[in-house]
C-alpha cells in the first residue's frame, strides 16, 4: 500500500513535540519519573478516547462523558461507603455508565435525534444528578484495596493507571480491527444506508457504541476517585472536549467510517505531554490554555493539509 503521510501524522507530531520539550527542558522533562507521571495524568482521557473512537467512527458524538465520570465516581464511592463491598461498588459504577450510554443510544438510534443534542441534554441531566446525589459534597474513599487497584498502585515502576490504559487500549484495538463488531461500527459510520442494505442492525450497533462510551466514562470516573481517594461532582468537567480532540488528532474521521484506537491514545498522550511541558516551562494557567488551544488548531490543520495533499496526488 502507498505510504499515506496523514495516517501517521499524529505519531510524527508526537515525536517532534517530545524532541522539542527534551531539548528545551532536558532532564526535567525527559526523566522516567516525569514520563510515568504523564501516563498517570492522561490515563482517564486515554481510556475515554478509546471508547469515543468507536462513537466517532460510527458517525456519532458523545458529549455526556464528563458528567458520567462525575456521577459514576459518586455512585461507586457511595456504595463502597455503605457496603464496603468492592465488587458491588465497581458493578454499580459501571452499570450507571452503561445505563446512561444506552439512554443516549436509544434516543439517537430509535427516536433518531442527532447525537449532539441528545448527549448535550444528557450532560446537563447527569451533571445535575451528580450534584444532587450528595448535595455537592465530596465522598471520601477509605477502602485501601480499592484505591491501590484503581488509582495509586504501581506494578514495578509502572503506575497502575497506565496499566489500565494499556489494557483498555488493547481491547479497543482488537475489537475495532479484528472483531465483526468493529467492521459493523465502521460500516455504519461509513455509509449507514449501505450497512442497512447489508443486514447490519444499525440501531443496535449505534446503541452499543454509546453503551461502550458510557462504560468507559464510568470506569474513568472510578479511576479519578481512586487516585484522590475521594469522589466529587466536579470530576470529568470539560473532559469531553479533551477526549474528542485526542480522537480527532489521532486520525479518526469526524465524518465516520474511519477510526484508529492507537491514534486516539497517542493523541491523548500528545496533549498530556504538551500540558506537562508547558507547566515545566513555567507558563501560567491562562497562558497554558491559550497555547493548548492554538496547538490543537495547528495540528488538526497540518493533518488536514496532509490528507488533502495526498488526495491531489491520486
Amino acid at each position, binding site marked *: *500500500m502507498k505510504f499515506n503521510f496523514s495516517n501517521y501524522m499524529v505519531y510524527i507530531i508526537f515525536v517532534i513535540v517530545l524532541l522539542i520539550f527534551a531539548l528545551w527542558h532536558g532532564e526535567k522533562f525527559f526523566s522516567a519519573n516525569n514520563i510515568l507521571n504523564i501516563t498517570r495524568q492522561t490515563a482517564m482521557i486515554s481510556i475515554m478516547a478509546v471508547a469515543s473512537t468507536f462513537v466517532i467512527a460510527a458517525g456519532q458524538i458523545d458529549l455526556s462523558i464528563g458528567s458520567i465520570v462525575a456521577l459514576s465516581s459518586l455512585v461507586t464511592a457511595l456504595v463502597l461507603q455503605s457496603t464496603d463491598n468492592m465488587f458491588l461498588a465497581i458493578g454499580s459504577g459501571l452499570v450507571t455508565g452503561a445505563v446512561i450510554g444506552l439512554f443516549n443510544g436509544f434516543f439517537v438510534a430509535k427516536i433518531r435525534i442527532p447525537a449532539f443534542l441528545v448527549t448535550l441534554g444528557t450532560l446537563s441531566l447527569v451533571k445535575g444528578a451528580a450534584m444532587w446525589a450528595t448535595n455537592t459534597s465530596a465522598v471520601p474513599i477509605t477502602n485501601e484495596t480499592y484505591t491501590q487497584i484503581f488509582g495509586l498502585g504501581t506494578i514495578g515502576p509502572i503506575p497502575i493507571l497506565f496499566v489500565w490504559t494499556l489494557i483498555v487500549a488493547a481491547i479497543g484495538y*482488537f475489537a475495532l480491527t*479484528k*472483531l*465483526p463488531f468493529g*467492521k*459493523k461500527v*465502521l*460500516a455504519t459510520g*461509513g*455509509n449507514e*444506508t*449501505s*450497512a*442497512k*442494505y*447489508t*443486514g*447490519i*442492525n444499525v440501531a443496535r450497533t449505534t446503541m452499543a457504541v454509546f453503551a461502550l462510551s458510557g462504560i468507559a466514562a464510568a470506569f474513568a470516573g472510578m479511576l479519578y476517585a481512586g487516585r484522590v481517594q475521594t469522589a466529587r461532582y466536579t470530576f470529568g468537567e470539560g473532559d469531553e472536549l479533551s477526549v474528542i480532540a485526542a480522537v480527532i488528532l489521532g486520525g479518526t474521521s469526524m465524518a465516520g*467510517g*474511519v477510526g484508529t484506537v492507537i491514534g486516539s491514545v497517542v493523541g491523548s498522550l500528545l496533549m498530556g505531554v504538551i500540558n506537562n511541558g508547558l507547566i515545566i516551562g513555567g507558563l501560567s494557567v491562562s497562558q497554558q490554555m491559550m497555547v493548548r488551544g492554538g496547538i490543537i488548531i495547528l495540528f488538526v490543520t497540518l493533518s488536514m493539509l496532509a490528507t488533502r495533499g495526498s488526495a491531489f*496526488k*491520486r
Partner: protein
Amino acid sequence: MSEYILEMDGINKSFNGVKVLKSVGLKIKKGEVHALVGGNGAGKSTMMKILTGVYTADSGTIRIGGEPVKFDSAQDSSRYGIRMIFQELSLVPTMTVAENIFLNQKPKAKGLPIINNRQMEKKAAELLREFEIDLDPSRVVNTLGVGYCQLVEIAKALSQDAKILVLDEPTASLTETETQILFGIVRKLKARGVTMVYISHRMHEIFQITDSITIMRDGQHIITDDTRNFSMDSIIHHMLGSTTVEKAFKRMHRERKPSNANVLEVKHLHINDKLKDVSFELKKGEVLGFAGLMGSGRTEIAEAIFGINPAKSGDIIVDHKPVKIRNVKDAIDAGIALIPEDRRRQGLVLIHTVKDNMILPVVDKLKKGLGLDKKRVENIVQSKIGELAIKTDNSNKVISLLSGGNQQKVVIAKWLETGPKVLMMDEPTAGIDIGAKGEIIDMIRRLADQGNSFILISSELTELMAICDRIIVLKDGRITGELNGDDIPSEEVLQHAIQQ
C-alpha cells in the same frame, strides 16, 4: 470564422504518470448535438473537465470559434459560455428552486445590495415556463425527486447565457416522462443555436437526439462521424475494439433449463397502498425479469422481500418453507440477497477497501477464536476477485477508486458469498460501461446455468431479453402480464407491453 465552434487538438493529460488522454482531438460544429461515447475510463470525463477548466491539459490547444483560449479555472471557461451539467448534483437541498437557479447572480433590488426575492422567483418561473418544466420555483429542492433536481440543474446552467452545454449522463436518474422533457429542452436549445456535448451510455438516446458522434477508447480518439452513419453494432464495435461483448447481448439457449421446483413463492403480498396484492413464483435455476417503468413498483417488491420495508401481509415461501421476513437479517437467513439499485449509496461503503466491503455480510460467520479468520477472509476475497474478474491492484484498495463496473462486481461478490438461494438484482448494469455490462450479463447467464435463481429488475429491455427465461410486466403496482423469454419477437413488443 471557422465552421467549428469548438476545436480541441492534441490534448494530453497524465495523472501520477499515467497517461489518461493521448493526443485527443475533438471538433464540434456550431449548433449540433454531439455525442461523446466510450467505456468507463475512456477519457470522456477528463476531456470535458479540461474543456470546462476543472483540469488543465498538459499540452494541446483549445479553440472556441477559431480563437485560441486557455482555461485555468471554471470561471475562465464560463466566460466563454461553456456550461456543464455534472453527474453529481450541485444543488443546495435546503434552498428553493429559484434560489438555486440564481445562486451566483441573485437579482438585486434597485441600487441596494438586497436580494429581491419576488423578482428572482418571477425570473425563475419565466425560465421554467420557457422550457416547459412544470415546477413551482418556490419549492424547496429537497422535496423534489431526483429527476426534477436534474431539470433544475439544467435550468440553472441556462440562467446564464450558454453557448456550449455539456450534459454528462443527464438521463441516468430520469423517468421516461422526464427524459422526454429533457429532450424537448435539448431540441429547443438546438433551435436557438446552442451547441451541446451529450455523454451517455444509452444507445437509443444517442440515436434519438444527437447529430454526430465521437467515440473514445483508452484515452484515444477513435472516430467522429454523423450519427446516421453509425449503427448500434458499429458503435459498440468501436467502443470495445472487439466483438466479445456483442455476444453477451444476443439471446442464447440456456445450457440447462430451469427446474420445475419453485425456489421462491410470493403470495398475496400487501406492501403499501400501491402494491396490495403481489403474487409470483421463481423456479430453481430460472432468471425472472421484472419489466416496468420507474414507479411501477419493481424496486418496492424487491425491497419488501429483502426486508428493507417488510410487507404488511402475505406469504413468502423459500424452498417450500414459509419464512417470516421482518428485517434484512431475516431475509439473509432465509437465503435471499439483493443487489440494490443505487450502488454508491446502498451497495457499498465507498471509503472502505474492496476486502472490507466484500466480507461485510458474512463477517459474523468468519469468527475464529477471538478474532476473524484471516486465512478464510483472504481466501474468499482472492477467489471472488478471480472468479468475477474484478480489476483492482489489490484487495486493500479503497473501493471508490475502482471503476463503476468493478465496484458493481464487488457488490455481486459480497452477496454471492452468502450463498443465496434467490439473488435479486435491481438495475445491476446502471451507470457502468458497456464492456462491464456485457460481463455482468454473461455472469448471470453462467451462474443461472449452475442452478442459481435470479430476479432481474432492469430498464434496459435488451438486457432482459438477452437472459430472462420469463419476464413479468408491472404497471402501477400490478402485474399486468407475463412473457416467455423465448417468445419475445422484438424490443418493441416488450416496450409496448410496458407502456400500455
